[in-house]
């Protein structure tokens, strides 16, 4: 496994946790773009987890309260594809799960200032994440 203190390299993959209500089961692109929208309390960007720093993608679910973990799908995205969209991935260590990182371009301030511009990026992320998606353990509804 990779040390989470190391910089993120283009050949890595990251995990984004997708709440089940942001999925459209059966659609070609099941992830809704809103799954990549920052929250009001995300001034530093949205969270992802570096796959190469974890034993497996499901390890990221440990950041959720246990009762909600089964409601999350897991999307795996290639860092190189994020870079191609003009995004970056910065390590941001937390205690609960190794490999936590942020996409600083998708901060709440940036999105509130020019949301229409970022919507296209979220659509692209939804398409990329939908290519490698582990469905929620508890189902989609």
């Amino acid at each position, binding site marked *: 496994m990779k040390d989470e203190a190391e910089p993120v390299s283009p050949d890595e993959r990251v995990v984004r946790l997708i*709440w089940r*209500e*942001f999925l*459209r089961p*059966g*659609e070609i692109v099941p992830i*809704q773009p*809103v799954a990549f*929208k*920052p*929250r*009001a*309390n*995300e001034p530093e960007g949205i*969270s992802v987890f570096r796959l190469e720093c974890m034993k497996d993608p499901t390890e990221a679910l*440990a*950041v*959720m*309260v246990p*009762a*909600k*973990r089964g*409601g999350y799908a897991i999307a795996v995205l290639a860092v190189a594809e994020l870079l191609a969209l003009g995004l970056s991935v910065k390590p941001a260590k*937390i205690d*609960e799960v190794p490999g936590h990182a942020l996409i600083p371009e998708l901060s*709440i301030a940036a999105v509130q200032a020019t*949301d*229409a*511009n970022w*919507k*296209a990026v979220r*659509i692209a992320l939804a398409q990329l994440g939908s290519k490698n998606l582990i469905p929620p353990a508890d189902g989609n509804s």
Partner: protein
Amino acid sequence: MWNSINPEILARLPRSAVNGSPNEVHPSLSVPKAEWNECFEKLEKYRSYLDDWDGQGKFLGKPATAIESEIVDSALALAKALERIGVSAPHGTYPGLTGSVSFDWLFENGDSIEFDFVDPETADVFFLAQGSDIERLTLTEAISTI
């Protein structure tokens, strides 16, 4: 609430024919077909969404924002107004991480229309067409026209 709707927006929404199929103006609504009741039921459910409804607050420190009943009231009122005038039911209805609620229509060619209720009197309407810039119009009660 929402007694009048901006006609520029209204003209671009998909309509249902008597038999429930899309009309000729918007012949390419994506499948599966949705029902308005599903939208209404989801909106009602969001009234119970308190802070951290998605469970990311305790460890990650990023709880989703509670959804205020006033926003649900607003979205419901507009949804029911759209149903009354024959607009097709949206494909998706979903809660927003910042306390908003949204619904959207999807077309087979990849285009979509999204209503995002950011406060009780304002909905941002996004028109996403393949190969074009995203168009955003704001729908407010105060400035809507008949």
